[in-house]
Structures are given as C-alpha cells and as structure tokens.
C-alpha cells in the first residue's frame, strides 16, 4: 500500500471505519458463501474446494472497507477530486455483492414474485452463483484500480499548487 493511502488510514477514525466496514462485509460475504453459519449453531467452516472463494471474500471485504473509508476521506477533505473513482469503487463493491449474494439457499422466495419475473430472477441468481469466481476477480480488479487511482489523486491533491492553496495543505486531523 502506498504512503498517501496509508497516511489517510493512520487517522484513527478512518482506520476504524475501514476495519468496521471490512468486518461487516466479511461477515456478510462469508455467511452468504456458506463459510459461516449462525443457526442453529455458530459454525465456521472452509471446505478444501472453497479455499479460492474464501480467499476472494477476505480480499474483497478488506478492499471494500479501505476503498469506502478512503472515499469518505476524499469526499470529506478533497471534494474537488473526480467522483468517478468513488463510483468505480462502489461499482466494484456492487459486483462483489451481486457475485456473493446469490447463493441458492434463499432464492426460492423469489419465485413468489409476480408473473415470470420471479423465475427470471432465480435464473439470474443461479447464473451469478455459477460464475462467482470470475465476477469476484473482476470486483477485486476494479477495487484495486480504484485504490491505485485514489493513491494518485491523494498524492496530487497534497502537492503544493499555487492555484489551489486550500487543498494543498494537509487535511486537518
């Protein structure tokens, strides 16, 4: 991780936000992919063939936490920066959710949706479930790109520019 991103994450508020968001997303991803069970007993279980998916879930939840925390940092202190990066970050997180939020054990209620829409939703869910790994890899790629561009933009924003004296100073702690 590059220094500017690290510098932002050294602030306790943003470090806590990143950790908290990662923990929430991680719990959700691991639950949705059946690595974590809450009922009837609390069980954590990673089968050997689920190792790839588990690793991707952990990486995605960590990246999601950091990207969201950094996006909040950017919005709070450097609002003049392009929002495209934040949008891309949220796009990556949305893909991660789509890929992870369609396991087959709760699709049946969708069949109750009126007309053929319920069946279509189930079909889409099944397709997403079948292609979870490529979708999650895409999501990791998007979030990684967002991290890189955030780092670059933070570095640029912190550089001294005569035309933008307010933003050139380092953000208040």
């Amino acid at each position: 991780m590059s220094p500017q991103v690290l510098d932002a994450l050294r602030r306790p508020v943003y470090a806590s936000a990143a950790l908290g968001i990662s923990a929430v997303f991680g719990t959700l991803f691991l639950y949705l992919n059946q690595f974590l069970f809450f009922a009837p007993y609390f069980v954590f279980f990673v089968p050997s063939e689920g190792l790839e998916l588990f690793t991707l879930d952990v990486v995605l939840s960590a990246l999601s936490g950091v990207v969201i925390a950094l996006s909040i940092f950017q919005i709070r202190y450097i609002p003049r920066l392009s929002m495209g990066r934040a949008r891309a970050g949220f796009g990556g997180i949305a893909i991660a959710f789509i890929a992870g939020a369609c396991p087959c054990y709760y699709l049946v209620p969708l069949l109750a949706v009126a007309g053929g829409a319920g069946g279509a939703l189930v079909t889409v869910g099944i397709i997403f479930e079948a292609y979870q790994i490529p979708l999650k890899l895409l999501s990791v790629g998007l979030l990684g790109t967002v991290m890189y561009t955030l780092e670059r933009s933070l570095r640029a924003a912190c550089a001294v520019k005569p035309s933008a004296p307010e933003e050139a100073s380092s953000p208040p702690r």
Partner: protein
Amino acid sequence: MPRRIRSRSGMRRPVFLIAVVIALALGAGYLAFSGTLSQSNTTNGSGLGPLSINSATPVLGSANAPVAIFEFGDFQCTYCHQWFLNTEPQIIQDLVNTGKTKLVWKDFDYYGPDSTSASEAAYAAGEQGKFWQFYDYLYSHQGTPNSGWASRANLVTFAQNLGLNMTQFNLSFSSGKYDSLIKSNFADGQKLGASGTPTFVVLGPNGKTVQLVGAQPYSAFETAVNSVAGG
C-alpha cells in the same frame, strides 16, 4: 462561499452512492439473516406431515433408526454438491451405518426443468433399488446448472452406465408418474420454511426437529442429531 456551496452539492452524489452500498449490504443481510432466523425456531412436536415417509420416499439406513435427517435438495445445486462431498460421507459412516440415523431424500427442484428430470430419473432408478447409486452418480457428475449435463438424454446414459434395466427405467422415466411426488415434496419444503437448497430437517423420535440451512459441516449435524435424540 460559492466554493462551499459547490462542495456540498458535489458531496450529494457520493453520499447517495454510500447510502446505496449500505442499503445493498443491509438488504443482503436482511435476506440472509431473516431466512436463518425464521428457520431457527427449531423445536416443534408437530409438522410430521411434510416429514412423512411413504413407499416412494428414498431412505438410506435402517428404517428403525430413531433419528431421521431429511435432505431437501436439488441435483443441480452447487452447495448440495458441496455438502455431498464434505459432509455426507461422514454422516453415512458415523450416523447412518451405526443405526443412529437414517437419511431421507426429498427433492426440492427449482433450478429448472433439468432438476425435475434428474429427480424423475433418480426415482425411476429407485424402482430398481438404485436410487442412492443414482444420487451419488448425479452429484459426482454435476456440471454448471442448466448447462445440459442433466438433460433427459444424459440421464438415460447415466442409467445405462449404472447397469439399470433400461426397458424398465425408460418406461418409468417417461411415464410422468413422479410429477405429483415432486410437486408435493416442493410444497412440503415450503411448508417447513425452506427458502432454497440444501435445507435439512433433523427429526427426533419425539417429534423434535432442528433445521439446518446450507452446506453445514458434520459437527453441526452431529450436534443436531444428539439434540433431537435426547429430547
């Protein structure tokens, strides 16, 4: 002053995006956890209707076993396959073969027409005493859902590979005689609150039940079986 106004309006969109992400997280969480909580009301003495066993219901293990594990599954479901690989072997070895439990299959087909065909074929194989061999064969050869791996033609080939009497198999497979059983099994699953596959109901001798949703490990089943057996 104008700069501050611009900044605030610029912040609206990202705040909206954050709200969308949080809403997505909460929505997914609600869907997932509401399913679990509604199904975690684990004990009730009634409800044997959906858990009834008739002559067409495949049962593995001793009929006199005090505990029954009902599997509501779909042959195309990837998590059912995961459970078949990781959990079922130990259940058979430690719980079924020792006479503590029996394993009961109830199809809960919703992946598509191939799921229904797979169930019909498995029941047809069951007429020749080979339901569980067909079950094992299907899960061992599972492909991407709805990719055609469980097409009717492939299911006939699977039956041939298992050495079934093909005249008898084809007659049964094409008769549609299991349509009502498949529909009633699905209705049974819904009555029990199953929102998908795999869903398991562990039924004890006194009617006490524990429901397990998802491809849970052996330890969860062992605890559930001990819980209902003692109660």
